[in-house]
């Protein structure tokens, strides 16, 4: 992801135009090639020396912020380590104190070389090495151990994605519309959203279209950074769709002025394919592990599959199956979000879900009353208790089986 100072874009008439780079641009391609080639040679080099080389390699017709952005992404592929050698702080203390004593005694000329050489005697190093080692604990002195190679094509794609991701960290709301998505695409994108802990409302506004609305981090009161990072990780899933429209309301710049970022497949923004989904969130996995141990009569399945509802889809976090009658309750665990969005989600499930369901939610997110879903909500502080979840699931199944 790019930092704020590396984002290139301008707001015109309330719309943010990000300055993505064109992979077909020879100058950009050449810059990316030069930087990758440079990073390929840096293992064993000091960080400061690499920075100097980057400045030289980045010279040319391309805007220097692009060069810095590409280098920023390449740094993320490097492993760094402090240089070997004596403890720098201890060495400094010794050398500077010896120098202070020499200065106070009025020795002329100031015996700089002798002080450095004396400090090196016990360490078995010469004066020049002592001088170099004095500040070897500064970040600029770190040595690059390794660099994970990348092609220039992928680097440029990563840059464009990183631009969008950086913008999304400032969003209040994101709406993704997909035109005629294939069923496997629907499944993949809904699961990706769910696994990234995003509370989406997937709707079918018209036949053949799927719309997903997500709160942006700037619309939350808590856990905004975590939510923003998850939204950023979700972005490639949206941008790789063959037919999509992506609209994000943003608070932009130091004044946090409202503006909108719109991207569609027609923009041909060249982004990388998303990486494989890691799987259910830690919270869901932790609950499933605990619940599996505690209640042998229930089987907990974390392999979330989209379920069709009257108005769209729902991807529950868990399927709880009671072994005695093989009946299932679908469940969500909601740990963060906006109280209003949580309430809207509950109302939607109450109205449209066609399967038995329940929602466990952090109690601070349940400030909005939802009477129609009251008997299906389980508030928790840190994590839902399996015993309470299964008690509620049992009561829901029992109720639904009554004539």
């Amino acid at each position, binding site marked *: 992801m790019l930092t704020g100072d590396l984002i290139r874009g301008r707001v015109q008439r309330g719309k943010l135009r990000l300055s993505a780079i064109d992979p077909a641009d020879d100058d950009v391609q050449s810059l990316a090639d030069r930087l990758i080639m440079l990073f390929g040679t840096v293992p064993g080099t000091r960080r400061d020396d690499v920075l100097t080389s980057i400045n030289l390699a980045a*010279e*040319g*017709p391309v*805007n*220097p*912020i692009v060069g810095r952005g590409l280098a920023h992404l390449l740094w993320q592929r490097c492993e760094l380590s402090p240089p070997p050698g004596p403890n720098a*702080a201890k060495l*400094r*203390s010794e*050398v*500077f*104190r*010896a*120098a*202070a004593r020499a*200065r*106070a005694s*009025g020795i*002329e000329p*100031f015996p*700089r070389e002798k*002080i*450095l050489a004396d400090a090196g005697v016990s360490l078995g190093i010469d004066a020049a090495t002592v*001088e170099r080692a*004095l*500040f070897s604990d*500064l*970040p600029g002195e770190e040595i690059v151990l390794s660099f994970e190679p990348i092609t220039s094509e992928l680097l440029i794609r990563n840059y464009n994605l990183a631009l969008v991701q950086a913008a999304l960290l400032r969003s209040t709301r994101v709406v993704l519309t997909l035109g005629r998505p294939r069923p496997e695409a629907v499944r993949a994108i809904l699961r990706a959203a769910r696994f990234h802990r995003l509370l989406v409302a997937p709707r079918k506004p018209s036949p053949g279209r799927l719309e997903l609305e997500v709160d942006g981090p700037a*619309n*939350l*009161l*808590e856990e905004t950074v975590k939510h923003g990072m998850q939204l950023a990780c979700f972005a490639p899933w949206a941008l790789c769709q063959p037919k999509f429209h992506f609209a994000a309301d943003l608070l932009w710049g*130091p004044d946090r002025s409202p503006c909108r970022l719109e991207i569609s497949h027609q923009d041909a923004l060249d982004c990388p394919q998303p990486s494989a989904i890691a799987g259910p969130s830690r919270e869901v996995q932790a609950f499933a592990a605990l619940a599996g141990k505690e209640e042998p009569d229930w089987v907990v399945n974390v392999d979330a599959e989209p379920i069709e509802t009257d108005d769209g889809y729902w991807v529950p976090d868990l399927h709880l199956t009671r072994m005695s009658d093989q009946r299932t309750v679908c469940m969500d665990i909601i740990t963060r979000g*906006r*109280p*209003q969005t949580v309430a809207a989600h509950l109302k939607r499930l109450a109205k449209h879900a066609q399967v038995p369901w329940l929602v466990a939610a952090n109690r601070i997110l349940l*400030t*909005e009353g939802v009477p129609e879903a009251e008997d299906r909500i389980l508030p928790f502080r840190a994590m839902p208790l399996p015993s309470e979840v299964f008690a509620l699931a049992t009561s829901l199944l029992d109720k639904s089986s009554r004539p």
Partner: protein
Amino acid sequence: MAETDFTIQFRAGTLELRGAPSGLTAHFAAAVKDPRDRSLRCAALHYRSLVAMLHQRKVTHVDLARSYAKISFAAPEGREPFPHQAEAVEAWWRAGGRGVVVLPTGTGKTFMAILAIVRAGRSTLVVAPTLELVTQWKGELERNLKIKVGSVGGGERDWQEVTVITYDSAHLLIDYWGPRFGMLVFDEAHHLPGATYRHAASGSIAPFRLALTATPERTDGGESLLNYLVGPLVYRREITDLAGEYLAGYTTERIWVELKPEEREEHDKARDAYRAFVSERGIDTSSPSGWRDFITAASRDPEGREAFRAYRDQRRIVQRAEGKMEKLEQLLARHSDERILIFTSDNATVYDLARRFLVPALTHRTKPAERRDLLSAFHSGELPVLATSRVLNEGVDVPAAAIGIVLSGSGTPREHVQRLGRILRRSGDKRARLYELVVRDSGEAAISKRRRDHNAYR
């Protein structure tokens, strides 16, 4: 407690008003409807005026926000305040326990604040810009108030009824401390109006607030925000009012330095290239937007980038001119029995000096344990010279320092006054000296003129 649904709750630097009687906003314009959760909300800063209004209008409410305590601090013993300290506390108290006090460095702002803390008698948070200052404040507060004082910042998390915190941590941890302190003290308060730091003031409910600074003026005019965040200017004294009696006597000396012939050639070439670009593009570098205009133009094309590099080159040559190094060597020898602070404008020069003259470097990179060691050795005289860029510009108490050598710096009088302030604290019968090394016939001459535009140099 009367039964009411109207609650005031602290949340993320704001006050959430739920169940407020209709028409409340007519009397309290700061509260606005928050579309995120449909509550009425205002910055926590308005707590004092909100509660005052509710009491005045006899509106029953449940205050779930206030979590700070009333405390009876023992008055500091064995030390009489200076007249200017007593006057400042009185002026601040008369203004309702809110406001800005401007006093030169070394005239006892800390002790004045301690008197104000005792007067307010509330849990207190002191906000300071650096870890050195946090440590310094903690020591002074514990010595004078005879209580355990907490400190937060640099990995430390020790919250007490009186706590000292860095601006960075104050801004990051506002959710935690916002409702827990009834009195705030902002040290070096010229930092407070910054876009991020201001939230440390707006996100707290503290009704008592004191801002301390020697130099409130900011180049962006942000000082006007202090009135909103803390209160009005209630007391002000300048260096010239207090020098000699409450501050050490001092002299300032500007030393002109010549560039070596090869440096001059390289410098002039770079300066001409930079000037040609500026003139060609019609950029007025003396205008308030001059620097921004230059950066914008320089980032547009290769020619601009070349000009920017030329600008940087001529600056680097001047900042690290060999003549300055020779002069510095002479000054170090001349004042070998005194404590010397060397100031530069950048860390790279600090480390160059440290390697060349074998003097300790103190920058933002210096780890806390080493900082403490360096400052303590400086006080004791074991390490009588410190090279620094900006870390020691403000606040840090180095009373032994008698000589300041400015190798390079910005053109703002604020920085220069702060640097002068480092050596002015009274210590025995010392007479302070501030040397300013300036390269003749370079951009530094104008910078030097600008930074001396303060009555302390007249």
